[in-house]
């Protein structure tokens, strides 16, 4: 496995950015948090280059999520962000989409796992490892989320 250089890291980041950014927006319902988290993850990668480029999207997603949750003012920040997201045109577009409506029914933790699984294509094992969860927890969360989306989706339809 070739070692990742700084140039290679920048190239891989550019390639992964669209998918990871969209996954983060869908998970957090906040594009500013998504972008800030990705920027932090990029800098983290510059400081400590990943050992290889396997599952780079998963690495970026995990680190960005962790960065968005860090900080003394996390709770206040998330509250403000959630209120602000209602005015965000990108989020409004997302919420008008079918998947957006369904994701809005889930908690952020459920969205994080479901998006990683169905959009980033991570296996339940990879999600469990990346997010520090048990595989059974990931599996149960996916099942519960799907059930809820199915139930609520049918009601809305």
């Amino acid at each position, binding site marked *: 496995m070739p070692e990742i250089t700084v140039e290679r890291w920048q190239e891989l980041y550019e390639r992964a950015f669209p998918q990871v950014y969209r996954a983060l927006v869908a998970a957090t319902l906040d594009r500013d948090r998504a972008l800030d988290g990705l920027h932090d993850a*990029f800098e983290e990668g510059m400081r400590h280059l990943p050992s290889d480029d396997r599952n780079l999207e998963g690495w970026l997603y995990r680190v960005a999520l962790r960065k968005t949750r860090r900080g003394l003012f996390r709770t206040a920040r998330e509250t403000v962000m959630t209120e602000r997201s209602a005015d965000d045109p990108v989020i409004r577009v997302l919420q008008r989409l079918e998947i957006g409506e369904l994701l809005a029914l889930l908690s952020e933790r459920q969205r994080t796992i479901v998006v990683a699984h*169905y959009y980033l294509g991570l296996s339940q094992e990879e999600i469990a490892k990346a997010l520090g969860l048990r595989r059974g927890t990931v599996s149960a969360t996916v099942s519960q989320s799907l059930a809820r989306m199915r139930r609520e989706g049918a009601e809305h339809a």
Partner: protein
Amino acid sequence: MPDRRSEIVDLFVRDLDKIELPPHDRWRPAHRKESYFAKTSRYVLYAGGVTAVLIAALIVGFGLRDRNSQATASPSPTPAFITLPLPASSPPATPSPAATWSLSTAPLGAIAVACGSVTGYASDGAQMLLTLGSGSMTTQYHLEYHFASVRPPADIGDRFASKTDQLVQVYGRQVPASPGSANAVRLRDFTATRVTTCSPTLSVAPAAFTGFVLPPDCAYVRPPALAFDQSERSFDCPGGTLLAVETLAPAFRQQGWISCATGPGRGYWKKDATLLVVQQVANDRPLLVQYPGTTSCP
């Protein structure tokens, strides 16, 4: 609601791929603009760091200067030796085994032995300041636990606080005082033990250079370098360093010293419990090296 995995994946991809991306120039983090507060804080931190380094350098500098003022450069090849000022009179000729010193003027490197009642005590867990008194005379000792040969009793402070009489004997090698306890006698490799009786005198027994008088046409040329386990003096004789071993031999015999051996450039002489070595030194004056407490020839 689709219920097959491929349909769910298609739905996610179809819809989430519609999320608008930010402009490409925002994909990577820009240099974040630093707030006035953050910038000021950074400058204050930098200034604080520089100030701390300067203060530390000044403290170290003053410490070295104080040390240098107490000890001039030693001619000894052994850097651990501390040199005493040269006495104004002729070199010591009295064969007394040891002199008695006031602790406050004891030579650095000398062994301090003291015994007295505890009249003061302070400790921060890493070191203690122990004051021993005898009559009207008190001396404070700075004892750092990590330099202890044997851990001192843990209840010295408790007994002092409860005003219980206790006699403590300390023994150790004196080193320069620390800036924070400049008046305390600071010891290394020390022991501090509680004793039931002791002669409550405060004394220091330096490894004084004694017991041998040079022939009349020879002279000591530098201050002695004293330490607790050996002492050195440079001397000068007619014939220089090459003939030093032979030149001193008659004087040694005359003063009751017994020749142990003579090696290349060295002569070993023994008397009582002291070994003296005459030693040639390349490009310098010869040395007399004294090893007190040596009971046999090498």
